[in-house]
């Protein structure tokens, strides 16, 4: 099997999707000749031309609004937002239009489309190139919100998203773009948008995460293992709709739960995971539900490494919860 970085895997998925189906088009800022500021769309412009790979004026409102129109017309547009922090000029089109089109038209009109965007910290980009905003989208019924954490998942989830009948917000953890290579299957395949991945099994503490935090959680799980704590790590892959059943199953086994996200804590998605367990499986809980998260502040520049939850912060939470009696 070929080895790829997440960026290469995403680029591979893009090429496959556009070859497979002429209705797949892509649009965004600097995605044409430049191939995207991270290179995710490299090679597409040369291969598919400017009718299917469209550099746009500087307007996220226009990118998403026109993509909605394309989807209504019958195309399968993939819109790139250069950084997730810049998605807000197009937020209205997402929450009022894309998410509600099927519902408000009684199923007559649908928006099978993807808005993909690099998300999270890791590139020393200060607070306008680093935020993790999945919670805004996770509170918006009608959307699917997907975040891969491995190259193989990234490819299979992006393909599944492009060919899905629902609108998808596809958030790419930019810190993992070049995090290392891993096996990626050749050719077309999908990874289910509805199933979490049990990244590692364990009996003592359930650790739930998604996107960029998953590798950090893996490191924390290694450290915990050294201390004799068996961590069951669940990578949600999708935060809306999300696979609560897998989490609840695990908590029934371990009795202990930590949820880790990079986003600020208050009203982040970790709170949803916690609240769901506190509602559905409280009787299995033997300890408080730990949350690890960014702080409730904007994202800083110089002290990015202090802000972002690291393996030690995750480990501390795991140890705290594991040690609770």
């Amino acid at each position, binding site marked *: 099997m070929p080895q790829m970085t997440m960026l290469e895997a995403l680029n591979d998925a893009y090429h496959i999707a556009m070859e497979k189906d002429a209705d797949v088009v892509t649009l965004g800022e600097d995605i044409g000749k430049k191939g995207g500021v991270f290179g995710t769309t490299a090679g597409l412009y040369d291969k598919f031309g400017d009718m299917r790979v469209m550099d746009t*004026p500087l307007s996220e409102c226009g990118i998403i609004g*026109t993509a909605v129109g394309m989807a209504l017309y019958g195309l399968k*547009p993939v819109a790139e937002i250069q950084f997730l922090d810049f998605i807000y000029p197009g937020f209205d089109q997402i929450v009022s239009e894309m998410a509600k089109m099927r519902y408000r038209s009684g199923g007559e009109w649908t928006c099978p489309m993807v808005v993909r965007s690099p998300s999270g910290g890791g590139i020393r980009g200060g607070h306008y190139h680093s935020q993790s905003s999945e919670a805004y989208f996770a509170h918006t019924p009608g959307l699917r919100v997907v975040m891969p954490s491995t190259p193989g998942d990234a490819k299979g989830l992006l393909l599944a998203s492009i060919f899905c009948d629902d609108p998808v917000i596809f958030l790419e953890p930019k810190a993992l773009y070049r995090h290392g290579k891993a096996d990626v299957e050749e050719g077309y395949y999908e990874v289910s948008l509805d199933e979490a991945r049990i990244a590692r099994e364990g009996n003592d503490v359930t650790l739930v995460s998604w996107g960029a935090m998953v590798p950090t959680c893996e490191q924390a799980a290694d450290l915990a293992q050294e201390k004799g704590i068996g961590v069951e790590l669940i990578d949600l892959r999708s935060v809306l709709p999300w696979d609560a059943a897998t989490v609840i199953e695990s908590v029934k086994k371990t009795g202990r739960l930590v949820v880790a996200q990079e986003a600020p804590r208050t009203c982040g998605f970790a709170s949803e995971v916690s609240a769901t367990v506190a509602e559905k499986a409280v009787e299995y809980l033997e300890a408080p539900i730990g949350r690890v998260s960014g702080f409730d502040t904007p994202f800083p520049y110089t002290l990015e490494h202090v802000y972002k939850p690291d393996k030690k912060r995750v480990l501390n939470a795991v140890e705290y919860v594991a040690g609770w009696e």
Partner: protein
Amino acid sequence: MAQATELLTVIDPKGKGKAPAGLDTDDFKAMYRAMLFTRLFDQRGMNLQRQGRIGFFVPSTGQEASQIGAAYAMGQEDVLFPSYRTHSIALLKGISLKRMYDQMWGNDGDAVKGRQMPNHFTFKDINWVSISSPIGTQISQAAGAARAAQIKGDKLAVWAWFGDGGTSSNDFHAGLNFAGVWKSPCIFMCENNHWAISVPQEMQTASHSFAAKAVAYGMPGMRVDGNDVFAVYEASRQARERALNGDGPTLIENLTFRMGPHSSSDDPKRYQPPELFESWQKKDPIERFQQWLAAEGIWTEAWEDKLRTEIMGEIAEAVEAAESTPQPEIETIFTDVYAEMPTLLKDQLEGLKEQIRRDGDIEDTGGAFPL
């Protein structure tokens, strides 16, 4: 590129003028009928709302020429992004009144399954895209749909409808800009009815006209007498021709007037100078067209009476049918959120059914729309 700042007019205020080429008596009659139908539909709609039988209504009184003139220039394959004030187009296109009233009652026959307020129609069979409440959002979508038609090589025009207020929206700027750069076959129809609820057009923009805004996007802008059905038809026809010839988008401003309240919840007396209203009442688009038709010997009182009786009959029948159709099933709260209902929603639906089994039906405590 012509930037017409003068007003395009065909029928003068006295009802004189030459019909655009290509239209014959049947067309004139169909246009008049649709305009009259719209006026009567609006009167009935406001009444139904006043009687508490529907929750809300948006009339288009005064704008019938602006809407029917353009709609008459549309091709069947054209795609339409309407506004909440353009139901006249559905009437012209022969959408059944039952479908329209079902939507307004939000009943079990409603295509949108009781999920939207009255006037928020969807008619996929005539390429009428679902209407949204947020102002402007359909403008950038129309630019995108027009781009999609280009990509697919389809020969058609996409029409976006909006008001003077809509020109201030983010999506107006984005939609026209993208369409300009892409040279997409998109027609941007701005009905300048002088008001955005209570905000007058001169507080909407300092631009000397809305049509002038086309300059900013490198497309032609046309300013049209929106109470003159032939002028609107002619401008729209030209714009469509341009679109189909690959010459790109056009912005059309129909200068007209909202002769009623913004909606059933509004009272213009609080902000509108009565003289302004009166001056526009004299320019009623239906009367103007009627005069022209009468001069041509097409309009007669007998015909008018026949039309009115016919239309009122159709309306009465459809109202009765819609009113006696039951509410949608509670499942409709949960369907169409996704292509397939996810577990979470299945559970919530089950919970709701359980509550109703235990506690009985949920009381409707009402609530009246203020806007």
